[in-house]
Every structure is written in structure tokens, then in C-alpha cells.
């Protein structure tokens, strides 16, 4: 088991190094950073001085290692457009995105598992069939369309919820939260549903099919033969076995929620890192773009790693190597 964990950690580090390389290459080769920094009025001497300062004259590997070292210390360069450290800008924007992604993920997981279990247990019921059919729409509609649809119904027609922004936020330490004000809570509902709907449907369909599979298993039949209650069988024996394979996919989906926040943030003008990235693209603000890509990758890799390690906690068969086998 320990060997496995170590191997997984090394794999993750390798992936992150590759991502770092891509981000670094963007810095180095997309656009000329010196030109970006110095603007029109510059002399050849200025250019040389800045190139030296930035270490652009060092050999490529040295530059890369320096870049990584800086990144590890949270030094992600300076935004071309705002002239402030990228890390500072991202730290300002991150709470909005993380809160949105968190609520979306919660929505996707809770409703995905809940409805998945429901549609599996009531396999032939009217409600279950209705949900399954509707969920096809959820999977096939693009996110921005769902967002616009929700805005139209709940903001424009009914006027219940705001159509853009984060509402009022409260600052706690360096973290600005929308959870503590009514307008903040209202504002997060539509974007969170928009962002999580696809993942919710995906998790639901997966849970349903896994659960149907598990319900056919011999140990479920044996559990019924022992007279265990339907509740104990469905929510104890069946659900636990269902969730083992569901965890990976769910983990990946949570990663993609963070990534896809870009679209939702644009539709709802949500002031998070996704919107920051979109704006950065318009201004070719390479440091911001690179930092964003690295951040997303780190999240992805971390979530994956956590999911893999979670397996050990849930499935005793995997940690079998450590304990006695047979008798």
C-alpha cells in the first residue's frame, strides 16, 4: 500500500512538472515578455538589462527551474495589464470561484447520488422514468444555454433571483464570502445549478447503473435471504458497493467543475478566476493565463490523488496486502 501511495505521489509530481513546462513555455515563447514590460519607448540597453534581470539569457533548463522555484513560493509573475503580482490578483478572485465550485459540487453529489439511488430502486416507476428522460436533456444542453435559460425563467420572468454578480460579500481575513448575506446566497443559486447540472446528471446516471448492477449481485440476494430490511439492503449493502466505482468519476467531475467555471462565470459575470482568465485572454495577459492554467492543473491532480487514496479507506480489499490472506 505504501508503495502504491508513493508511486501515485510521484506520478502526480511528474504531471505537475509537465504542466509547469507548458505554462513556462507560454511565458517564454508566446509574445515577448520584454516588449510587454517596456512598451514603445525603449533602448537596446534597456532590453538587455531587463533580459538579464528576468534571467532570459540563462540556459533554458536553468530558467525552467527558476520558474518552478518561484511558482512554488507563490511568485507567479506580474500581470501585464494590472501591473500587480498575479498571486495577489488570483488570491482576490479565488474565493468567488471556490465558493461557486463548492456549492456546485455539493449540489451535483447530493442530488446525483440521491436521484441515482431513487431511480435505481424505483426502476420502473413513473417518476424514475421521468427523471431519466429529463436527465438526457441535462446532459445534452450546453452549459451556457442552461445558464441563459435559468436566467430567463428565474431572473427575467419570475424575478426571484439575480441574473449576475455575487451579491454582497463579507470579508473574513483574506477571504471574501457570499455565504453570509442574503443577496450573496441568492446570487449563488443559479450559477451553481448551471455549473453543476451536467455533473449532477452524469453522477446520477452512473449511480443508477452501478446500483442496478449491485442490486443483482449475489450478496444482495443473500442479504435478502437473511431477512434484512429493504432499507438496510438498499442504503447499507447496496449503496456502499455502488459508491466505490462512483468515487473516481465524481472526483474527476469535481475537477472539471472548477475548470468549466469559466463558462458559467462569463454567463453570470461571476467575479472569479474564470472570468479573470477570460479577461486575460482578451489582453494577452500571459502571466495571468499561465497562472490560471497551473492552478487548475494542480487542483485536478490533487483531487485525483485524494480520490485514489480514498479507495483505500473505503475498499478493504485494496489494503489486503498488509493483512493476512487466506488462513
Amino acid at each position, binding site marked *: 500500500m505504501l508503495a502504491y501511495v508513493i508511486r501515485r505521489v510521484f506520478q502526480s509530481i511528474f504531471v505537475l512538472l509537465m504542466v509547469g513546462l507548458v505554462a513556462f513555455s507560454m511565458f517564454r515563447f508566446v509574445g515577448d515578455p520584454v516588449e510587454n514590460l517596456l512598451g514603445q519607448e525603449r533602448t537596446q540597453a534597456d532590453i538587455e538589462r531587463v533580459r538579464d534581470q528576468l534571467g532570459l539569457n540563462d540556459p533554458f533548463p536553468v530558467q525552467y527551474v527558476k520558474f518552478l522555484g518561484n511558482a512554488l513560493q507563490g511568485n507567479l509573475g506580474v500581470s501585464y495589464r494590472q501591473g500587480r503580482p498575479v498571486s495577489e490578483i488570483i488570491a482576490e478572485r479565488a474565493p468567488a470561484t471556490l465558493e461557486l465550485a463548492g456549492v456546485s459540487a455539493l449540489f451535483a453529489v447530493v442530488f446525483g447520488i440521491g436521484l441515482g439511488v431513487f431511480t435505481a430502486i424505483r426502476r420502473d416507476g413513473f417518476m424514475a422514468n421521468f427523471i431519466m428522460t429529463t436527465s438526457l436533456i441535462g446532459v445534452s444542453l450546453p452549459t451556457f444555454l442552461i445558464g441563459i435559460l435559468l436566467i430567463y425563467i428565474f431572473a427575467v420572468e419570475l424575478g426571484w433571483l439575480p441574473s449576475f454578480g455575487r451579491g454582497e460579500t463579507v470579508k473574513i481575513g483574506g477571504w471574501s464570502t457570499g455565504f453570509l448575506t442574503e443577496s450573496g446566497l441568492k446570487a449563488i443559486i443559479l450559477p451553481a445549478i448551471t455549473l453543476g447540472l451536467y455533473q449532477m446528471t452524469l453522477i446520477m446516471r452512473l449511480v443508477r447503473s452501478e446500483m442496478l448492477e449491485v442490486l443483482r449481485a449475489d450478496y444482495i440476494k443473500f442479504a435478502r*435471504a437473511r431477512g434484512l430490511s429493504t432499507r438496510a439492503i438498499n442504503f447499507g449493502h447496496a449503496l456502499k*458497493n455502488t459508491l466505490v466505482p462512483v468515487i473516481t468519476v465524481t472526483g474527476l467531475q469535481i475537477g472539471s467543475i472548477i475548470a468549466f467555471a469559466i463558462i458559467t462565470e462569463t454567463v453570470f459575470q461571476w467575479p472569479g478566476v474564470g472570468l479573470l482568465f477570460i479577461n486575460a485572454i482578451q489582453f494577452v495577459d500571459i502571466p495571468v493565463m499561465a497562472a490560471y492554467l497551473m492552478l487548475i492543473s494542480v487542483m485536478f491532480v490533487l483531487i485525483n490523488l485524494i480520490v485514489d487514496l480514498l479507495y483505500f479507506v473505503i475498499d478493504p480489499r485494496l489494503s489486503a496486502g498488509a493483512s493476512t490472506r487466506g*488462513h
Partner: protein
Amino acid sequence: MPTPLLSVRDLVIEFPTRHGPLTAVDGVSFDLAAGEVLGVVGESGAGKSLTGSAIIGLLDPPGHIASGEIYLKGKRIDNLRAEDMRAIRGRHIGMVFQDPLTSLNPLYTIADQLIETIRTHLRLSEREARQRAIGLLDDVGIPAASRRIDDYPHQFSGGMRQRVVIALALAAEPELVIADEPTTALDVSVQAQIIDVLKEQCTQHGASVILITHDMGVIAETADRVAVMYSGRIAEIGPVREIIQNAKHPYTSGLMGSIPTLAQEEDRLVQIPGSMPRLSDIPPGCPFNPRCEKVFDKCRVQRPSLIPVENRQVACWLYEDTGTSEVAT
């Protein structure tokens, strides 16, 4: 005559299909006395498992009981509400399935599964239930039971797992245990031990057993009576010794002729030429008639019902005259 523990009357099990219902079990009747071991043999597809599942109320839809009755201690149980039948499963009727590797939930320890079962049926505290669970494991021959109880199923071998399954089936003291090919999936070297444990434990707990198997040898050693099934019906039922020494039904004779001797590894039954008809084209009259050496005209037209002959019952027209009662035709 005292009320039998279990009484199955004219049980018919059907599967609906597009071309009308398929009758997989057709008019099965038998009684089982308290403490008795009834062996059930027959070729694959004869309806042995379906009969067992019907008794414990676990037929997989769309299969269902189309007619007939099942009585446990004189009380009808085939038409109970789902919740009432659930209370009977485990508490009054236990079941052991074929494959111990898949019968246990891989994510729960043996203790979890035993204690859950015990506490579903008996009013015991967690600690009392655990004590009882350890006792059960001891009884079925799990070494160091008090330590092994917290292990997961994958930490046991196949034979040990089937012992656990037997302990689980007996956890709430059922009066009847249905064992559906309990050793088929196991290594030959442990099969005999498991049958011994099953028989010994059921005797000790005073449970009757319905033992479904392909192995006449096992039945000869274990059962008091045997029911031979063919095409969803009972061909012959009676005391094991008598049937083995002197089979009356031509199909049973064929089976006995193919009992493997100890020297042979072969444990499949069928050496009679031909094969059992498919459910969709069971011939009229006696279902065995296309394969029967003694077939005569009546066999192709009229279906024989069970005719009492001496201590047993035989569904064969050859015994019509020797029958003690008049057979309605």
C-alpha cells in the same frame, strides 16, 4: 399425522413471455417434516432452484408463483405481504447459496454481517449479538473465531467463506434451511467437509434441510428423503435408501445407473440418451416420454400425476395399477 413443517401444494411458477407464459415449475407438491433432510436432484433446468426461491419468497421477477400454495407450520406463506415475508426470511427459513465468494458483501466484516442479521431478528444488544456470532463461527469450524470475526470476506478461503455463510443462514435459528448446491463452487477437497458442517449444524439447531444438488452421492449420505425433478415436476419422491436401491421411475433408474463410483471423478448425473426438453416445447403427456425406454401410448397423451407406491410417490403410468388410491384421469 402432525402438521408438516413445510408443505408445498401444486406449486406452479411461470415466466411471462411474448408468446404467453412459460411454465418452469409445474404442479410440484411435497411435505417436509421437522428435522428432516430432503435432497432435491435433477438435471440443469429442472426447476430445483426456482422451487427453493419460491419457498423463501425470493423469485426474481418476472418469474412468479402462478398458482399453488406453500405452508410453513400450517400457515400459508406464499401470499404474504412483502414485509411479513421478510420477517420470515432468516428467522424461519434460511438459505445457503452456491457461491460463497459472491454471497458475502465484500465491504463489510464478517462481524458486521453476522451481528446485523442476528439483531434484525432477535432482541439482543450489540455485545450479546457479537458473543452469539463468535459462537456460531466456532460451531461451523472457523479457527480463532473471536479474532477472525473482524476480518473481511476476502481474507477467508472459499471453504471458510461457505462456513461463514452457513453460520449466517443459521444466525437466527430458522426451522428450515434451503441449501442450493452449497458445494458446487468449491474445491473438491473441501466439499465433503462443508456438507458435514451443514448437516451437523442443522441437526444441532433442529433445522430441516432442503438440499439441492447434482451429486447423488451427497444425497445418499446426507438426506432422509429425495425428490427427483424433471421438467419442472417431481418424477419420484421417497426415502433415499429405497429409491437408490430400487428406483421406480424410469428417469430415476437412469440417474441411479449413472451414480459415479468412488473411482470416478465424474459427478454429473445424466447418462440417459437425449436431453431434457426446453420449457417452450415440453411434450404432452409425460415430459420424459421422448427419452423413456418403457414409453407406451398413454404416456404421450396423458400427464401422470404422483402415484403413491409403497412409501413413495412416482409420476409414471407404469404404476397406475399398483397405486393405493384411484388415480383421477
